[in-house]
């Protein structure tokens, strides 16, 4: 046990119950002053609940146990209480107002007032500029936030936290939506903040980041503290953390698969796509193909045009002035609408399942049937009993954890939602599945299940294209990997010859050097 004096924060025997479920049971958390402390655990392990207890979202009295800040007990009644003591949370979904400026966002709720209670804009913008410099963001404070990328918005959030005199900064999945460059920048900023005396708590699924920057790690499982790991020794590996999270060893992240590619299923030739509103090519003269029983990866930095390429192929649902040829089973097809693409055996599972993939207020059954409803209908009449049967069999095959197929999709965990998305597309009986970030925001156990499902599909002769920001995922799952940079395909690497370094190099290749 670490001595109390060193700890900025201690949470002791925290128990929080919701009607019928104990979300947290006797959870203990100790964070040393000036360290980066990681909290990991599968989805539903209680990480977010614990942070809500800490920040006062669940007010003192609604849980059991005690919280010590600087060794003395605290009883937060709300976020304002915890913020006044220097605890600030930055949530995964950023809480910025898009059409307000950076400066206005930073001082939202904490406006810099001058004479007569009016806002002193000069001071506001000058202060904001100083804060932006401290997080290494070179932007004008009057720029509207909507014009910034996610990575920069994240930095604005941190600047906002610093403006509140933060001492304990909590970041919930800070790099989930960031590309590698922005992630690296954020992590180095966290190191700098730590060195300046700001303690950081970081919730993350990305174990490589945890092993890279955390000084210590608390592992939660099923609402209990499993262990506290000291990372300084460098002996704690990702596998070690996973063992704590899932309570067992996972032999491998990626299930084995024997690759036996067959005939070509999908091919695109000279595919170019223009941005819907700007005059530039988002996809520039791309050629690729995928065979039955094959998994092909598309690697690229954010903004390289991966999703845009996939969506333009999928019934031209992105971009304009699309040129090029699309072949399915060697036959040229003109999939001008999503419905035509589906009819031609193409399926596309989006990277953002909540916004583009699911009807969150509808149940599992109707989400699964959404894309293939005509298969259940005769003359426009839906056979709803058949629909339930289909949903039930998907629930079984995919191991969707829900009380019934009538459960509302919005209440499922990320992993189970993704299984619903996959079920929906499998019900259209596609020949080729384009999976865009298939495991984003999903816990380790569910990831493994998704990989297993993908392998099963490939074994059944489907062709699969995976778009992913996680290179290890591509290396673990694919037979071949295409790299995309600024809309151009810069390379095609068989997995046997691929390494992260080699892929990164191709992904970062700029237009000129491609020729």
């Amino acid at each position, binding site marked *: 046990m670490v001595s109390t004096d060193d700890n900025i924060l201690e949470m002791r025997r925290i128990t929080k119950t*919701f*009607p019928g479920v104990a979300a947290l049971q006797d959870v203990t958390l100790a964070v040393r002053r000036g360290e980066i402390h990681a909290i990991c655990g599968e989805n539903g392990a209680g990480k977010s609940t614990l942070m809500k207890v800490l920040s006062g979202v669940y007010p003192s009295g609604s849980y059991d146990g005690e919280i010590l800040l600087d060794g003395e007990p605290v009883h937060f009644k709300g976020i304002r209480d915890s913020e006044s003591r220097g605890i600030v949370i930055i949530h995964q979904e950023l809480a910025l107002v898009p059409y307000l400026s950076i400066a206005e966002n930073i001082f939202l709720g904490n406006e810099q007032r001058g004479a007569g209670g009016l806002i002193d804009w000069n001071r506001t913008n000058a202060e904001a500029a100083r804060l932006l410099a401290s997080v290494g963001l070179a932007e004008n404070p009057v720029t509207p936030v909507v014009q910034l990328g996610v990575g920069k918005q994240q930095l604005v959030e941190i600047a906002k936290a610093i403006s509140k005199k933060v001492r304990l900064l909590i970041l919930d999945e800070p790099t989930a939506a960031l590309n590698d460059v922005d992630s690296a920048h954020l992590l180095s900023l966290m190191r700098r903040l730590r060195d300046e005396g700001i303690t950081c708590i970081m919730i993350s699924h990305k174990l490589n980041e945890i092993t890279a920057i955390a000084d210590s790690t608390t592992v939660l499982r099923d609402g209990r503290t499993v262990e506290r790991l000291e990372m300084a020794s460098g002996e704690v590996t990702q596998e070690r953390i996973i063992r704590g999270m899932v309570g067992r060893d996972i032999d491998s992240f990626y299930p084995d698969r024997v690759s036996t590619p067959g005939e070509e299923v999908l091919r695109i030739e000279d595919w170019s796509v223009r941005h819907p509103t700007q005059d530039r090519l988002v996809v520039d003269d791309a050629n690729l193909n995928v065979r039955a029983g094959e998994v092909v990866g598309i690697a690229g930095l954010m903004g390289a045009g991966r999703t845009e390429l996939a969506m333009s192929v*999928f*019934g031209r*649902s992105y971009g304009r002035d699309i040129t090029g040829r699309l072949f399915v089973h060697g036959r040229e097809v003109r999939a001008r*609408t*999503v*419905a035509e*693409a*589906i009819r031609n055996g193409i399926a*596309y599972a*989006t990277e953002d399942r909540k*916004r*583009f*993939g*699911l*009807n*969150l*207020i*509808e149940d599992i059954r*109707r989400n*699964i*049937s*959404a*894309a293939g*409803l*005509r*298969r*259940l*209908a005769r003359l*426009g*009449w*839906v056979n*709803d*009993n*058949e629909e*339930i*049967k*289909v949903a*039930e*069999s*998907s629930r*079984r*095959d995919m191991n969707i954890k829900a*009380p*019934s*197929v*009538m459960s509302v999709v919005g*209440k499922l965990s990320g992993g189970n939602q993704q299984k619903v998305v996959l*079920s*929906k597309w*499998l*019900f259209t*009986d596609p020949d080729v599945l384009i999976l865009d970030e298939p495991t984003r925001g999903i816990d380790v156990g569910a990831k493994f299940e998704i990989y297993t*499902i993908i392998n*099963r*599909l490939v074994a*059944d002769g489907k062709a699969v294209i995976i778009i992913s920001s996680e290179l290890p995922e591509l290396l673990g799952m694919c037979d071949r990997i295409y790299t995309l940079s600024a809309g151009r395909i810069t390379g095609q690497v068989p997995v046997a010859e691929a390494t992260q370094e080699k892929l990164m190099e191709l992904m970062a290749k700029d237009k000129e050097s491609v020729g």
Partner: protein
Amino acid sequence: MTSTRPSSADKKSAESAPAAALHVGTSDPRTLIMNNLRQSGIFVALVVIVALFAFLTDGLSLSPGNITNIVLQYSYILVLAIGMVIVIIGGHIDLSVGSVVALTGAVSAVVVIRQGQPWWVGVLAALAVGLAVGAWHGFWVAYVGIPAFIVTLAGMLLFRGLTLRVLDNISLSPFPAEYNRIAAGFLNGLIGGDGYDAFTLLIGGIAVAGYVVSCFRTRAARVRYQQPVESFALFVARMALVGAVVMWFAWQLAHARGLPIVLIILAALVLVYGLLTRRTVFGRQVYAIGGNLSAAMLSGVKVRTVNFWIFVNMGFLSAVAGIIFSSRSNGAQPAAGNMFELDAIAAAFIGGAAVTGGVGTVVGAMVGGLIMAVMSNGMQLMGVDQSLQSVVKGLVLLVAVAFDVYNKRRAGASR
């Protein structure tokens, strides 16, 4: 093959699997009520309001004559509410229906009264105008991409103006007797009866029999697919309750003037649109669009086409309401249908439709409309001042939606 396509091949596995689902079958009345709070809540509200006004008016509100009156007086609002709830499920709104009711009625009046055409030519002309208006709205909403609020606000002004034009700013009346029968006519005396109309009772009996048969068929299909079904006792109790209410209703009508023709029209529309929303690909796609537009688009739903037809349908039902209203008022007036859109919208929301789209039912909208109807009618019987009536209706709408929002928040918090 992991395809989840229905096939006879997986029949064997299907036998074991849905068994897992069987235990979630809801026969416990409390669970049933909790699960269907959104729906059952308004049924309870309707019963309470009916009982309240029966008490306040010493049973006058439940008298045969008054029951008939309610049907005649509010049928066109209910017809509008059917179309409106579909519009709202799709994530839109239609502010123009009152003006369209006026316009279609006016066109019909001009054709029948001024030009002396037969009554059915007037009906067809009104329907054609309604469809054209719907297509106009649908075009702007679906293909140009203007929010329905704006398009139909413009339509509200536009079609009110056209109504004035068509009528030359004066009222037209009266319609010939055949046209009048649409909203004021009754089917009765066809098979006699002493002091009551046996035909009305017969139709009521047929309706109940049809309901029972369809319940049994649904239940049998669910059993065949090994889906959970409610306990048999509850099943019978539910049918008995519905049957009793329908027969009582028919009994009351039979002791007044018989079966209103407009009730037959309304019942047919409710039946058709109930099935349309629940059981057809089109209906499902409306829910999908309202629930998540982007997801629907990326699932191959032809969003524009669906939106277009949603508004064409609204135009059609506005015309039906326009015909009924002009028939009932025995003429066309420039100010006809004023504020009807708000009654129809209120009915849909009281009936559980969500402001954000994706949620709502035709039956719910009918119950919502009936709640408004029974309240207005009851207050009129009691001689409550018009101003107070409006205040009460406004508050009921607010409370109903607040209840809905509260419910949703609670459901969200319990995850």
